[in-house]
């Protein structure tokens, strides 16, 4: 257990602490300890966490349950980030993010699950900041821009954080074009867009020329494409995963997109050219490519490895996406291969003990079966991006150690098919 609840007067069980919160205990070791203030209904608790080893989300969850004396109560955790947004904590990633971004205090808000769920959204805390007295948390730059927004963007309660989209190759594309990468794997959201034939106007040396083109005709509400905000209706599709679509029919482009749907990279000419990335200064500054995400991707779920919207010019993002772009070819090698181990041995046991082997044989009749399949973990769980990619690259091997035949057991097949994790590898 790396968590250590620092005994404080405030955390005495049963005592009302609302007044004591004003008197801050001076911290002697502010560098490696994070001050935590958690609120459940009307009660506050204060304690500290080790900054460099805060442990996992589950442990923290249990700690809060004991501190607030609510064992067995299902709760949702939220924290106030530096911009004053109320963001959820429900896995190791966002817990670590919360701890690392505590400045200096980590504010935890606990709500019962049965209650009306809290709305996680940008700006959500600021609207009630007067009541909470969060003015101290408000940072100057981004906070003020947020407050100018009319409505905060809604963020659903995420189960896992993952990247769902990115803008890539900004440095090599013309400003009028945008190359968008949609990460389908792991999500259950539909890609959610439609394409159509249309006429595109090109400027050629001979003058303006009308050529057939393929355009986005519709975005499905709640789909991946819409939620990224990077694709819009009437955007012209120029390339699909690096292949020019000029001269291809609508059906061909459809097939190309479907074939690449798990890792779709579309180069579009947005119908709305006002949100284009303007190259500031020289093209050599790699940082620019990272910054483009900020324009449209504020709505994308925060990714653990992508910078927060405010922190611009992160060169890591740029290089990261390029690296992924290079490896995309390998992405779909994740064909699932189930091996039946009872097959493998051409061993003595099999030969000598024919009775036993007969049991393993197949026949049209069904036999009772009892075995469990070792299921792969959802690959998008909490691994750093690079590892996640590697995992999906290599073919997953699931060996049935039990040694029972899998084929006759139709219901076991069923359970495996229904398991989304296997399917969406």
């Amino acid at each position, binding site marked *: 257990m790396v968590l250590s609840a620092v005994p404080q007067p405030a955390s005495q069980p049963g005592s009302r602490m609302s007044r004591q919160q004003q008197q801050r205990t001076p911290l002697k070791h502010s560098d490696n300890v994070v001050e935590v203030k958690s609120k459940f209904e009307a009660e506050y608790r204060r304690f500290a966490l080790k900054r460099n080893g805060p442990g996992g989300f589950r442990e923290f969850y249990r700690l809060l349950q004991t501190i607030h004396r609510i064992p067995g109560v299902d709760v949702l955790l939220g924290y106030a980030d530096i911009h004053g947004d109320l963001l959820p904590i429900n896995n190791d990633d966002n817990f670590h993010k919360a701890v690392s971004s505590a400045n200096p205090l980590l504010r935890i808000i606990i709500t019962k699950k049965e209650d009306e769920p809290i709305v996680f959204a940008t700006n959500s805390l600021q609207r009630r900041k007067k009541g909470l007295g969060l003015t101290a948390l408000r940072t100057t730059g981004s906070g003020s821009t947020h407050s100018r927004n009319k409505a905060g963007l809604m963020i659903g309660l995420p189960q896992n954080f993952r990247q769902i989209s990115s803008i890539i*190759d900004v440095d090599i594309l013309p400003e009028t074009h945008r190359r968008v990468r949609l990460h*389908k794997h792991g999500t259950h959201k*539909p*890609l*959610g867009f*439609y*394409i*159509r*034939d*249309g006429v595109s106007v090109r400027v050629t040396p001979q003058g303006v020329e009308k050529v057939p083109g393929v355009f986005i*005709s519709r975005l499905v509400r709640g789909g991946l494409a819409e939620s990224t905000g990077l694709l819009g209706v009437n955007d012209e599709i120029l390339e*699909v*995963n*690096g*292949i020019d*679509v000029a001269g*291809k029919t609508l*059906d*061909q*482009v*459809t*097939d*190309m*997109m*479907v*074939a*690449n*749907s*798990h890792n779709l990279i579309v180069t579009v000419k947005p119908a709305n050219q006002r949100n284009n990335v303007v190259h500031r200064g020289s093209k050599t500054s790699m940082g620019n490519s990272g910054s483009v995400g900020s324009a449209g991707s504020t709505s994308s779920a925060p990714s653990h490895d992508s910078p927060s919207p405010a922190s611009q010019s992160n060169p890591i993002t740029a290089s990261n996406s390029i690296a992924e*772009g*290079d490896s995309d*070819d390998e992405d*779909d090698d*994740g*064909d*699932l*291969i*189930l*091996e*039946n181990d*009872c*097959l493998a*041995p*051409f061993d003595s046991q099999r*030969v000598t003990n*024919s009775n036993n082997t*007969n049991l393993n*044989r*197949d*026949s*049209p009749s069904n036999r009772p079966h009892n075995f469990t399949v070792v299921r792969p973990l959802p690959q998008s769980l909490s691994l750093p991006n690079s590892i996640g990619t590697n995992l999906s690259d290599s*073919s997953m091997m699931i060996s049935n150690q039990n040694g029972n*035949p*899998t*084929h006759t057991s*139709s219901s076991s097949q*069923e359970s495996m*098919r229904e398991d989304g994790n296997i*399917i969406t*590898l």
Partner: protein
Amino acid sequence: MMKFRFRRQGTDPQREKIKQELFAFNKTVEHGFPHQPSALAFDPKLQLMAIGTKSGAIKVYGAPGVEFTGLHKDTTAVTQIHFLPGQGRLLSLLDDNTIYLWELVAGAPREVVTLLHFLHPLLLLSATRVTVLLLLRSCDLLCIGTEGGGVYFLELPRLTLKDSQTLLQDQITQSLPDDYRCGKSLGPVESLQEHPQQPGKILIGYSRGLVVLWDLSTRQVEQLFLGKQQLESLVWERSGNLFVSSHNDGGYSVWTVTNGNTCNQQPVSSTIPYGPFPCKAINKILWRTTQTGSPVLLYSGGMPRASYGDRHCLTIQQDKEHVTLDFTSRVIDFFTVHSIEQEKEFDEPSALVVLLEEELVVIDLQNPGWPSLPTPYLAPLHSSAITCSFHISSVPPKLWERLVNAGKAQQGRQHAHGSWPICGGKNLAPPPKQQELLLTGHEDGTVRFWDASGVALTPLYKLGTANVFHTDCDPCDDPQDPSNDPDMQQEEEWPPFRKVGCFDPYSDDPRLGIQKISLCKYSNKLVVAGTAGQVIVLGLSDERSDHMVDVSVVDLLQDREGFTWKGHDRLEPRLKPAPFPPGFQPLVLVQCLPPASVTAVALHAEWNLISFGTSHGFGLFDYHRRNAVLARCTLHPNDSLAMEGPLSRVKSLKKSLRQSFRRIRKSRVSGKKRTITTPTSKVQEANAALAEQEDVAPVQRRIEPRSADDSLSGVVRCLCFADTFLRDGTHHGPTLWAGTNSGSVYAYALEVPGVGSGRACERGGAGESSVCVEAVLGKEIQLMHRAPVVSICVLDGRGKPLPDPYEASQDLAIAPDMTNAHSVLIASEEQLKVFSLPKVSAKTKFKLTAHEGCRVRKVALVAFSSTAQEDYSEHTLVCLTNLGDMHLFNIPALRPQVRYDCIRKEDISGIASCVFTKNGQGFYLISPSEYERFSLSAKVITEPLCSVQLDRPLEPTPLVKPEK
């Protein structure tokens, strides 16, 4: 992303040269019967026959193997063809009023006539429509009859109009008696016929009934024949003393031509053969004299309107002999083959050739009873709609001989052994090096065996599977039953009908339709699978046999609950022993439950195993021990469509329809079908196009990955047997592979007694106890992209496909490399992928859809031999995509080699019907009745090589500009 650019292979000149020696794309021959024929002609001097089609094609046929094709620039229907006898030239009249002159010219290699070249078109007299053409025997003048009644004359071969000769109706009307004239026009010119003895005199027949004998040199009316009935056609008697006219009322009249009598009021005789009730018109009549006695009279139509008005008939009459040939499709045109030498006194017709809409029928007029002759080409492939096909290269001579004999036994009764009357030209093609067999499965449950070794696709043998079942149709339909002879039954009937031809578009029971065929050429075992889940294993026998067929039922659903099949019932097996003629005779019938259409079959005759798949799952059956080894359900629980079977609309109607009506199968999608455009229809088309542009919302396509619960995900797409390494890297054994519509691949290790790794010996005493074939699931592969698996093939240690069963064990092929690791090639609709074995990991792949935007439809592994080096050959993966193009990849590296456009992408049935041979050729349907044969190999090409002896040089005539 840059990688896509880098993937392009650099052009290695060495490799490019090898590629040129291996691959070349050619469309070589069209097999079968031309779709929608519209014109027929015969050159009695060269003995060549020409057929024109509605799509503007002209095909010339002579002796078997002699074929030429020409295609008009516009796809307009050819309405008439006329040979310039002996010259190798012909004139074609199109529906748009143009005349083309064609000629045979020498092709590139040798003095072989390979092509029809058209010389020049002539747009004629746009004001009036051409109705008939007459080419004078001297071949220097073309007479053109028109709708307006005028006759125009063109000089040949320049096709220049001789204005001074033009004969307008006024000139004729002047010489008519007043009571006949009565102020009306004479109508269009219906017929032009040259006097058989006196050149320069032509007979002109007008629609109203007037016939005029016109002298071209004096430009005078020689004689008038004042017919009162609307005229349909005219024919001269050989001597020129009389001619016959046929009429709209179903009658014909005989007129005598006697000198000096300028105006004939009445014909010598007038007959309505099928009267007295109103009859349909006699469209064409021929009068042929014979030495032995009465002339032979041949005419089409004339049937009593009320009772037989819908029949397509042609009557042959001589004395008391009278036969009404009853065809299943419309008569387009007909001609007789007869003596043409001027000095002979009689016609002596030897054969009648009738072009019908769906087939060509030839009647032997020399043998009593006028039997029909089998056609060596132009076979109606579609006598019942083609549902699948299968090709076998290098058929062993023994099997070939037995098939030929079985086929002869079938035909013997029906056909006389007269010689083929159309025998012009010389076939120069060398005899085929090997025998090739094309099997077509049909909707009526028959499998036809065709000799596909050469240019002419000829029928060898026909296998029916309907007699395995108890069907609604009458059991005495057995073709072997002599009491069923139509001649005997219809003795008393008038008209004396005789059914002729084999085109039969009716299907008694759609469930009988054949879906998949597999034949083992070494063991002569045939597997045929059909629409109602029936899988029949047949063996070849030279003796007639009456036996019961063993029936097994395999439930592919197993214990799946909650699914009900709402489609058709399974076929009821016949309970009594049935007589089976020599040929392939059924041994075992396996019926899948639910009785969905079989989507894949595999046969391994060495292991006595068949495997079959439907939309519900797949099964493995040991036909030697007659027991089911395995049944595996591939259904996804959400897939309700597969369970319920065909659409409800069909099923509710079907049952009652089946019992009461026979179903007419309309021609399926036809690639060449085009409507004849008239000015009005063009306007309508344009309007329709405009209307469409305005109010139809743009077509949009959803972009979504394939998901597990797409409907029909459980359809089994391919099955394959292989002797390979599935368990471990050291012991190989029989395996079964199955691929589904949703990208799942199942690999089973099979335990076949006496086969594989010498296991039987090791087992020793245990061998007796386990005599059954057993199957254990070894691997399951779920392709991530979930595209349908089109094909699975195991490659040996050298990366070559495994040989067929028996080939290795009987030293008929190079033994597969079993020392190095095997691999499996899985082709899905989107990707080609090679996985290592026994540990399944991806080795190489090619993402075709991601790159080209096309989907794989058909895949074949083909051995291409080089034109340069005798012994060099490469195994290549040939892929036909949904865009109709061929992609060739080397294996196992899957590097793209070449790409050819082959089929129009709109021609879905063409793409679906494509079948490849093992040496780089292929066939696909260009119409319901025609296979296009193509070749991807630079070496193996089957194309017509023939010559025709002409009395002119074979160099093309210099093109002359037409003058209006």
